[in-house]
């Protein structure tokens, strides 16, 4: 019952000649993933709220806390040697948890994930692209914060590989928790709660207040938080020259497995 198209259609010829003749096909997976990751990095760096959270706040804290005696530090050593690892932890938390949770919450709300589901980019590819995006922003953050810290006389120790292990495990944990939150709450609730949790963890995760300041009962609980494992581990390496802080790596690995498993079970794309 195919009806033939009307012969000639001079109206259409007016615009640019476009040929819609089907020629379908997905781009190679690597190209799709890199394109998606680049697209997401550009969007994240263009968003003023995200920049404030991930770049401006950690950088300001680095300058303020390390330069002036606003907060008493524990133990010997320069203030910057205490704050630089803590604020690296804050930077990772801001991108992998708060930033990712808020962005994903609104992507669900606006139907962006649904639309992406109609493109050739598979879901696993989207997840890999988001992970690359987060890691890429973290590299920018840590490079910037390191430059500020070095300018303020920071002398890092330890093995950079150990830093990478800690950051990757923490990123997995925070990203899992972010997806859990974004996948179950409304976008506005995610926005509020992700910021609130960020502030709580800044205070209670060994970022700016040494955990030794807390009563020992509370401290044991706080030590088991992923943010504390990250900041404790980073200090073990960067401040005290440890090769690989096994206890903290273990805590982070357990959190990462649990967070990703729960997020994978609960996350809804629409």
């Amino acid at each position, binding site marked *: 019952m195919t009806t033939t198209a*009307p012969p000639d*259609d001079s109206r259409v010829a007016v615009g640019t000649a476009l040929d*819609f003749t089907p020629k*379908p*096909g*997905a781009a190679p997976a690597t190209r*799709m993933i890199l394109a998606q990751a680049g*697209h997401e990095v550009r969007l994240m760096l263009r968003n003023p709220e995200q920049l404030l959270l991930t770049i401006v706040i950690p950088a300001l804290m680095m300058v303020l806390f390390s330069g002036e005696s606003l907060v008493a530090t524990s133990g010997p050593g320069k203030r910057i040697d205490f704050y630089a690892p803590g604020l690296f932890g804050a930077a990772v938390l801001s991108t992998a948890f708060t930033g990712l949770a808020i962005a994903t919450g609104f992507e669900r709300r606006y*139907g962006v994930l649904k639309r992406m589901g109609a493109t050739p980019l598979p879901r696993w590819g989207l997840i890999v692209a988001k992970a690359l995006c987060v890691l890429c922003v973290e590299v920018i953050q840590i490079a910037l914060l390191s430059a500020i810290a070095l300018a303020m006389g920071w002398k890092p120790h330890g093995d950079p590989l150990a830093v990478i292990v800690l950051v990757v495990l923490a990123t997995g944990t925070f990203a899992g928790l972010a997806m859990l939150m974004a996948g179950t709450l409304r976008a506005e609730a995610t926005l509020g709660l992700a910021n609130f949790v960020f502030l709580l963890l800044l205070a209670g995760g060994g970022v700016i207040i040494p955990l030794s300041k807390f009563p020992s009962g509370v401290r044991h609980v706080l030590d088991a938080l992923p943010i504390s494992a990250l900041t404790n581990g980073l200090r073990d390496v960067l401040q005290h020259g440890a090769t690989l802080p096994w206890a903290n790596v273990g805590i982070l690995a357990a959190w990462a497995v649990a967070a990703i498993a729960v997020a994978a079970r609960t996350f809804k794309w629409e």
Partner: protein
Amino acid sequence: MGQPAVEVTGLVKRYGAKTAVDGLDLRVQTGTITAVLGPNGAGKTSTIECCEGYRRPDGGTVRVLGLDPVTQGEQLRPRIGVMLQSGGIYPSVRAVEMLKHTAKLYANPLDTDALIERLGLGSAGRTTFRRLSGGQQQRLSLALAVVGRPELVFLDEPTAGLDVQARHATWELIEQLRRDGVTVVLTTHLLDEAERLADTVAIVDAGKVIAHDTPDALSTANGAGDTEIRFTAPAGLDLAGLLAELPAGLTAAEQPPGAYTVGGDVTPDVLAKVTSWCAAKDVMPQGLSVGRRTLEDVFLDLTGRELR
């Protein structure tokens, strides 16, 4: 005629206790434009979303380009284009950026600059999605659906909210898609859109296809008469008296009051009898016309006139 582009058999889709699609059958031939027409809540979008792989059918089978959209989605998605009813685009993305990014996900995308020009989005290129007008947002969504050079596109209400110029530009683009060999499935509320564009129209109501044919065949389907006489005159004329003058098998109706239609096998003789009956009553039949039943008449007959 080859394999159909879309073959839906006995599709059932439930949301909780509500059955949105209830044993729906639909066949779309390759290279045609099919309009899925129906009142709100008839099950159009649920059906299309089962074809796109967004929803898992509760019963029946769905094959799109010979593939199962749920289990073979990764093979299917590069070959189809999807235009969703609401954007699905992040508000801070610029129009051109979104299109160029989407193009990178395909092996042989269209030239994005030419597509932007064709859809009249040139001036909107650097504008973020949230600042585009409703019509520009719609046209960008259409561009995203076709940029990957798909074999088959699903367009959910492609001209909703467009002004007349943009609607015609969109219709011309959809006609060119067919001419270039793309199969098009679109949903619409707009009967003139279905009548103008579609090779076949599937009328969906209460989760079933209740009629599926060419617009012409649908318009002439009911009974022998494919034409009717319409006129307006003072309300309350004696229609039984009129019918008594006419050959058997004709119908006469007044709806709304003052608007009359005489349907059935309308011949020149019938027309003369109607006008002489009016003359005898000294009634002027204003706006008298003899015409084919429109798709709108068929649609209202089939789906009822009550609002829902």
